[in-house]
Every structure is written in C-alpha cells, then in structure tokens.
C-alpha cells in the first residue's frame, strides 16, 4: 500500500429498508493511513455504512470498493483484512478474556500457536494481561472496549473500523482508547471512526464526513470546515430574552433557547455584547464541530 492510495471508495450509494432510506446517494473515500470520521446523530446512516463496508449488508444501488475489491463479490477477502470494533460488546459471555480471543482467532484461520503469540502481544497492548482468566462479564466498561479493540487486531487488519468506540465510557477510559487509536495510526493503520462525540472527532480525525438523515452534508478537515462554515470563535448567550443582537456581526443560530454567534472577529462581538446589556450571561470559546453541526442541520448530535 502506498501513501495516498485509496482504501475505500463509495459512489452514489443508496440503501433502503423498505420505505426508509438509510443511505441516500452517499459518496466518499478513505485514503491509506487516514483516520476518517463519520459524524452524525443516531439514525444518520453511520452504522448502515459500516455494515456495507464490512460486507454484512447489501446496498440498494451504487458502487463500493474496499482495497479495490467489490464488497458484494469478494466479501471473504475484504473481511480478512478488516478489524471491526462494533457498537455492542458482542463477546462470548461463556468464555474468559483469553478464550474469547483464542476462539475469535479461529474465524480468521489463524493457527493456535500463532494465535497464542498474538494474544500475548495484544493483551499487553490493551493492558489486560492480568485479566486474562477473568470472565468477560466481570470486566469494567473500559476494559470491555479495550478487549474488543484487541479482538479487532487479531488478524492484523489494514483497516480498522471503530463504531462509537467510547460511548458510555468515563473520561479516563475514553482518553485511554484515544491513545490506542493514535498509536494504531502511527503503525500505519487506516482507521474509520463513527462517533457522536465531537471532541473525539476533532481530536482524532484527519478528515470527517458529517451525516444527517442518510446523506453526507459536508466533508473535510475539522478545523478547515469550522473556519469555512462558521468562523473560529463562538459566543454562546444563555439568557436571550429581548436582546437586540442585530449589531453583532457573525452567523447567528437560535437553538434551544440559546443564541450562538459564530464569528472570526471576537473583539467586535464582545464590545457590542457588553453595550447591549449588563447582566447578560454568555461565554466565548473556540467554535467546534458541534456548533458546525447545529449550524448545518439545526439539530443536536446527542439525542
């Protein structure tokens, strides 16, 4: 694999479940060594897209290649090179940590001897060496996620897909997962990530696709997208009754009884704001992907 070569390419993908369109004319690509994020609220179509990439669902129309191979013609070969971290921790509850990994390695045709060596390294990588003989059901949420990351690496995949890897985890555990993802990127893995945490996407992703209702709304580097669409600074006003903000320059978004003013000119906004009213409650902060998403869709990400 060369730098800049295309790992995944999707063109005009549609996917319907009966009357509902889960994906509506979606086109995207993922290059070698990138971390690409697919962001959007529940129901945006992220998981459907992942199912298509992992060859576990059929598209209604369009083209999709992974490693240059058609997902519906060569699923076995494609799946052998992908590591999936699914949303659910779908372990075998009857097995221990070690047994889970050993049993899973057989699905890839890995010999027992080879698997044993790999499992040692992976347990080391995810810091679960001392938990090897515990039942998976006894692990904490963070440990379960780490184990499922270890499981996704058994086949030394070129492409790793993380479907909401940190949902429901405490801040410390999330940071640990982020470190691992960054580490994997350094090892030359190509990574796809879906999330509805915008801080996660901003921290990890080289490029993001923002999705809503089965469509890709926009695509690009997080900081570039923010600058292009809404500006680098955001003033968030909490008590916004009878405030005249017409004098403040910037893009104004009214959302859930708050006003967001997105601007590149923080100084101007602050001066104007102070003149309007003395007891106004507000904060000024750098704009983030969440602001961008609300600006683009009028919706919040966490539902």
């Amino acid at each position, binding site marked *: 694999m060369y730098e800049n070569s295309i790992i995944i390419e999707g063109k005009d993908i549609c996917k319907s479940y009966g009357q509902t369109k889960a994906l509506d004319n979606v086109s995207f690509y993922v290059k070698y060594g990138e971390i690409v994020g697919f962001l959007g609220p529940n129901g945006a179509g992220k998981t459907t897209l992942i199912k298509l990439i992992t060859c576990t669902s059929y598209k209604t129309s369009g083209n999709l290649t992974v490693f240059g191979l058609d997902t519906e013609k060569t699923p076995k070969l494609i*799946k052998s090179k992908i590591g999936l971290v*699914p949303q659910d921790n779908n372990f075998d509850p009857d097995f221990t940590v070690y047994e889970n990994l050993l049993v899973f390695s057989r*699905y890839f045709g890995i010999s027992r001897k080879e698997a044993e060596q790999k499992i040692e390294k992976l347990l080391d990588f995810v810091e679960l060496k001392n938990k090897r003989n515990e039942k998976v059901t006894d692990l904490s949420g963070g440990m379960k996620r780490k184990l499922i990351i270890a499981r996704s690496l058994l086949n030394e995949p070129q492409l790793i897909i993380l479907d909401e890897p940190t949902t429901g985890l405490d801040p410390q555990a999330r940071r640990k997962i982020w470190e691992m993802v960054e580490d994997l990127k350094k090892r030359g893995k190509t990574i796809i990530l879906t999330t509805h945490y915008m801080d996660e996407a901003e921290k990890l992703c080289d490029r993001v696709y923002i999705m809503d209702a089965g469509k890709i709304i926009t695509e690009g580097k997080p900081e570039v997208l923010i600058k292009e669409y809404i500006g680098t600074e955001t003033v968030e006003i909490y008590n916004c009754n009878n405030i005249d903000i017409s004098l403040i320059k910037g893009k104004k978004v009214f959302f859930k009884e708050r006003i967001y003013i997105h601007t590149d000119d923080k100084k101007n906004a602050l001066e104007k704001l102070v003149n309007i009213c003395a007891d106004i409650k507000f904060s000024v902060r750098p704009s983030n992907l969440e602001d961008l998403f609300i600006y683009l869709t009028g919706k919040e990400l966490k539902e």
Partner: protein
Amino acid sequence: MIITKDWIPVWKRNRDVFKKLFWVNFFLPLLEPIFYLITFGFGLGSYIKEIDGMPYKKFIIPAIVAMATLSSSFFYTTYSSFVKMIFQKTFDAIIATPVSIEEVVVGEIMWGATRGIISGFMVLLLLKMLNLITFLGFFLYLPIIASLAFTFSSLGMFFTATVSTIESFNYPIFLYYTPMIFFSGTFFPLSNFPEAIVTISKIIFPLTYSMISLRTLDISFNIKTLLEGMFPLIHGVIFFILSIKLMKRKLIK
C-alpha cells in the same frame, strides 16, 4: 450459496462452550431418559405384558433414545441459537470475520447434530449396560440417531429463522414437537389407528419411520429397514437448505 470449511471454527466454538458447561447443560438433561425408563419401562411396563409381541419395556426403548437425541439437537438450534443470535450478538461478531452467515448456520446445525448424537450415544450405552438392547441393535441405532440428530437440528434452525420472539418457539414446540413425541408410535403402536391417520403421521412426523425400524433392527439386520429408519434425513436436508436461506434473509438486510 457457497459454503467453505469456515463453518468448522463455529462448530469448535460451540464444542468449547459445551465442554465448559458440560455438567449443567448436558449431564443433567441425561437424567430424563432414566426417569422415562423407570416410569414407563419398569413402572407402567410391569402392568402391560406385551405390545406387538414385545415386552413393553423393550417397546419404548427407541422412544427413549430418540427423545434424548431430539431434545438435545432441537432445543440447541432453537433456544440456544436464538439467544446467541438476538441477545448475545454472537452471529454479528462472527460474520464480521471471513466466516459467512451461511457458514455460521451450518456450524450451528452441525453442532446441534453432534450434540444429539452424543446424547443418543450416552443413552444407548446406558441401555446396553442394562441389557435392554442387543449388540446388533447398539450399532444399528447409531446411523438412525445421527440422521435424527441432523434432521431435528436443521428443523430447530428453521424455526429459529422464522420466529420473531423467543416466546414464539411455543408454537413449533407445542403444535409440532410435543405431539410428535407422543404420536409417532413412540409409547404405543399406531397399528390400532385407521390407515389414513398412520399415513399422515408418517408424513408429518418422520420420527414414525425410525421408531418402527429401530424395533426391527434390534432383532435382525435388513438394509431396507435401516434406510427406512433414516427416512427423516429427507426432511433434514430440506430444512437444512431452507434454514440457511431464511437465516441469511433474516440477518443480512
């Protein structure tokens, strides 16, 4: 439908769980045939002298072997597979690897069949120790046990592919499985019933053929009788193919 040897790791997974849960999931249910033997064989059997020229406790031997085999296979590919599919998401985890959904289903059915064969074999051993079957019968029972195990494993998977909730298994269990256990010439002969009923019973309950054959095979070998006893295999193959197709349609949308 392409099926490679990738179903084997699925079979091995199930075998490994079986080893872990051997006592609770396997050994305890094996007590059931003993209860049947005591109740019908030694209890009721002491009041009934002969049926079709055979002591009653010998008459019900095929039923006791078949029940152990059937329940071991059928309840595996129904409840156990359903729990793995819906609640544990084990199938989802496996199909993200090179193993296909068809191969997952084959691995499940093959394990269900293996399980049934093991159960049947254990009961057979017990019956041999009690001297309730002949040496010849012991060996001739095996192919029929295997065909019953495969058939009811496939049939169970067919129902798993068609029910929507775990409670709905009550339909096939109480409308099909349980009546079959009682009305296939298991505990009483069908010979007193009108010919039409016997014919219907033979068609919808393939177990009927096996019951008749097994009683004969215990006494004398005849290739035709053996093949008749394996008649359920026809049902087995049909439901094997159907269950793979239906399961694919259910899980790969």
